[in-house]
C-alpha cells in the first residue's frame, strides 16, 4: 500500500461576492488548513454537509481552484503547477461529478465522451481507439451498443457509468468522486457503488466526497468528516460511525434515517 496523494495544510480562500453590487467582496475561507493522505487500493471518504468545503477540496486536487498549502499527487507537486496544468498531470487524476447530465456535454455521444480523453492522452490509432472504447464500456458494465447514444439518451445510471469510463480512460492513479452517487436512484447508486469497489485496485485510490455517512460506511476504507472547512474527525468507518468523538459527527450520525426505525414504532 503506497501513498498516492499527500495533502498538507490545504487552504482555499474565495472572495465571496454575496451580491452583484458588492464592490469589495469579503474573503471567505472554504477550506482551512487540512491535511490527509490517500493510499492505493483504498477508498477514502470526505463527509460533510453543504458549505463544509468538501467539494472545494476535490476542486483543489483537480487544480480547478487556486489554493495554499502543499498537495502532492502521484509524485507531482500540484502547488507548483500552473493554473492550467498540462495533460501529464491530468492523466494522473480524474474525476466523476454529481450530476452526469450536467457534467457531460449534453450534445456528445458515449463514444465521443470516452474517445475524447483517449485522444487527448494519446490513443490516436483508430482501430486501437475504438477497441479501447469498447473495453472501457465493458469495464463499467455497459453494452457497446450504447456507443452512439448522447448524454440525454442514456439513463441516469448509464450516464454515470459513462462518466466513470471517461475518467478511467487515461488510467489515472487517483479518482475523485464528487457526490458521484448522490443524484442517482438508490438501487442504481448501490450498483454503481459496487462498481467503484470493483475498480479499486493496488495501483489506484479513490477520494469519495459525499454527504451520506451510511453509504460511506458501507463503501469506504477511511472517513474524514468535514465541518466549516476543517476536518473534525477521521478514522476507519466503524470507528467514526460507532464511536464518534466530535459532537458534530455525533449529530450527523443521529440524523441518518433508517428504514428499520419503522419497526420500533
Amino acid at each position, binding site marked *: 500500500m503506497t501513498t498516492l496523494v499527500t495533502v498538507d495544510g490545504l487552504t482555499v480562500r474565495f472572495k465571496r461576492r454575496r*451580491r*452583484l*453590487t*458588492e*464592490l469589495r467582496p469579503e474573503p471567505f475561507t472554504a477550506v482551512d488548513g487540512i491535511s490527509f493522505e490517500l493510499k492505493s487500493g483504498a477508498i477514502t471518504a470526505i463527509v460533510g454537509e453543504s458549505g463544509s468545503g468538501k467539494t472545494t477540496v476535490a476542486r483543489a486536487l483537480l487544480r480547478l481552484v487556486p489554493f495554499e498549502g502543499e498537495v502532492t499527487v502521484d509524485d507531482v507537486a500540484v502547488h507548483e503547477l500552473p493554473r492550467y496544468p498540462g495533460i501529464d498531470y491530468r492523466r494522473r487524476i480524474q474525476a466523476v461529478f454529481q450530476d452526469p447530465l450536467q457534467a457531460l456535454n449534453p450534445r456528445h455521444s458515449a463514444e465521443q465522451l470516452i474517445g475524447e480523453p483517449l485522444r487527448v492522452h494519446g490513443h490516436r490509432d483508430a482501430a486501437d481507439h475504438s477497441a479501447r472504447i469498447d473495453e472501457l464500456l465493458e469495464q463499467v458494465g455497459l453494452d457497446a451498443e450504447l456507443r452512439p447514444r448522447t448524454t440525454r439518451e442514456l439513463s441516469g445510471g448509464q450516464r454515470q457509468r459513462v462518466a466513470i469510463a471517461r475518467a478511467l480512460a487515461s488510467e489515472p492513479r487517483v479518482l475523485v468522486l464528487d457526490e458521484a452517487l448522490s443524484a442517482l436512484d438508490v438501487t442504481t447508486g448501490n450498483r454503481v457503488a459496487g462498481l467503484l469497489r470493483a475498480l479499486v485496485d493496488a495501483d489506484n485510490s479513490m477520494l469519495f466526497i459525499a454527504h451520506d455517512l451510511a453509504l460511506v460506511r458501507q463503501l469506504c476504507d477511511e472517513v474524514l468528516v468535514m465541518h466549516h472547512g476543517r476536518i473534525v474527525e477521521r478514522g476507519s468507518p466503524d470507528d467514526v460511525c460507532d464511536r464518534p468523538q466530535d459532537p458534530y459527527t455525533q449529530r450527523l450520525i443521529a440524523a441518518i434515517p433508517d428504514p428499520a426505525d419503522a419497526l420500533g414504532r
Partner: protein
Amino acid sequence: MTRTILIRIASLIPLVILASFVTFWLLQLTETDPAVVRLGDDATEEAYELYREEIGVNDPFLVQYGSWLANAATGDLGESWHGPDQVSELISERLSVTISLALGGLFVAVAIGMVAGVAAGVRAGRPADGMITAVASSGQALPNFWVGILLVAFVAIPYDVFPATLYTGPTESVWNWLLSITLPSIALGTSAAAAIARQTRAAFVRVLHEPYIRTALAVGLSRRSILYRTALRNACIPVVTSAATLFGTLLGGAIVVEAVFAYPGLGNLVLVGIQNGDLPIVLGFVFVAAVAVALVQLVLDITYTIIDPRTRVS
C-alpha cells in the same frame, strides 16, 4: 439606500470618461485639418500653424485629451472649429429638443409597452395574448422615421392639431411643447413600445413557470393577486434593466426623427458639423449623449433597487 445611489453615481463617472476617451481617440483618426476648416483653403501656412497651435492639436494625444476632459468637467466643450461659437452653447440650445423627444419616446415606449405587455402576460395563452403579441411583433418592425413621415402626412397635415414642423420649447408654452413633441414621441416610441411589450410578456411567462407561483397557488392566493402582486413585480426586473439601453436607442432615433419633423435638435447640429468637418461638435455631441444615457441609467438603477431589494448595498 443613499449609499447604493452614491455607489451607482461613482461607477457611472468612469464609464462616461471612458466613453469620451474612446470617441476622442476615434476622432483622432480623421484627416480633417481644423485649420482648413476654420480658415478656409486659401490662408497662409503660418496662419494655419498658428491656429493649430492655438487650439492645441499639435500637442501629444494624451495632453489634448486631458485638457479637453478638464474643460468638459466644467461644462466647457471647446470651441467649434468652424465658427467662433462655443460647442457647449450650440449643444445646449438644441439639447432640449432631442432630450424632449427621447424622453417622450421613452414615456410612450414604457407606458404603452408595459401596459400591453402586462395585458398580454396576465392573459398568457389566451387569444388576447396572441393578438397583442402579433401586433407587437409587427410594431417592432416599424422604423421610427417612417412612422414619423406617415404621422406628418396623414395626421399633422390633414388635421390641424399637431404641428408638422414647428417645435415649441417648454419654457415658452408647456401646452404647445407637449403638442409639438406628441407625434415625434409616438414615432420614436412605437417600435420600442412593441419591443417592451414583448419583453414584458416574455418575462411574465417566464415568471409564471417559477416554483413560487405554484406555491402562491397552493397557498390559495387568487389569480389576480398572483398576477398583479407576485408575477408583475418579478417580471418588471428584466424590463427595467433593459430600459437604459433602450433610452440610448431612442436618443439615437431622436436624431433621425427630428429630421423628419425638421426640429432644430442635436441631429441637425451634428449633421452640419459632419459636413463641415467640425469635429469638436461631434465630440461634444457624443459626450452629451453618453452623459444623458448614464443619467437615465442612474434613474433606472435606482428604480431597479426599489423593485428588487436584493440588489441593495447594505
